[in-house]
């Protein structure tokens, strides 16, 4: 089940962490450049999704945090117990969960992009 060395996976873990830090900072800025409650109004949120660079930013947040988060979970679970079956099972489970979350989030971004906005 070892397609990548753990050292390579940890480099990916750190790169996704730093990338996520930058894009999430921009995401939070978008919520506080106007009064917080106003930024959550349906029209404003849909307008965000219609902005292509912002939609790309949301997709990158989704991918970076999903990779970082589920790999972090994999590391925690591997620290708790070690055996070939457990390690393979945890790796497969976290990859499947990561892909499912990315697919579901991408669907939201794509559908919200196509919604009408008056």
């Amino acid at each position, binding site marked *: 089940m070892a397609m990548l060395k753990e050292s390579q996976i940890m480099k990916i873990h750190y790169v996704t962490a730093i990338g996520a830090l930058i894009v999430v900072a921009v995401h939070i800025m978008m919520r506080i450049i106007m009064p917080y409650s106003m930024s959550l109004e349906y029209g404003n949120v849909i307008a965000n999704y219609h902005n292509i660079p912002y939609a790309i930013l949301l997709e990158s947040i989704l991918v970076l945090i999903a990779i970082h988060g589920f790999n972090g979970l994999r590391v925690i679970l591997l620290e708790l117990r070690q055996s070939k079956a457990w390690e393979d099972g945890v790796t497969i489970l976290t990859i499947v969960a990561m892909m499912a979350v990315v697919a579901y*989030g991408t669907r939201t971004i794509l559908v919200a992009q196509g919604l009408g906005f008056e």
Partner: protein
Amino acid sequence: MENAVDRGNREGLVGWLNPARYGWERFSYWLQRLTGVGLLAYFVGHIYETSSLTQGPDAWAAMLELTQTPMGHLILLLVIGMSTFHSVNGIRLIFAHGGKGLGKPGRPDYPYDAVSLNYKQKSGIWVALILAAVAMLYGASVLFGGE
């Protein structure tokens, strides 16, 4: 002979959560993991929450009614604190894993304090905790400030 690959971790979760054996750094170790798991749970919940956008303004308003409450804001404050600690402590760990700020190896003298667990690492943990508290205070001013 027991196969090294299949050897079980006999302490399991108890060993993972034991803060007594390794001092302050152990506290940082499990706080990094607990905040990581908490943030992953929030991330999944946030994706589910925002998916209500696709069902129109009414579904979005209904979801906001559920989340934009004092309890929802308190959970968000916790998320702000967790994400700030996790980020700052994570940057410290990236440097530490790269060998920065660990000091030079020395002779193990009693009481055998590891050179790597020095004041730089300890102050890094404190900085993470203080920044998390500051971020939570700012978050509280935005969420409960009546804007």
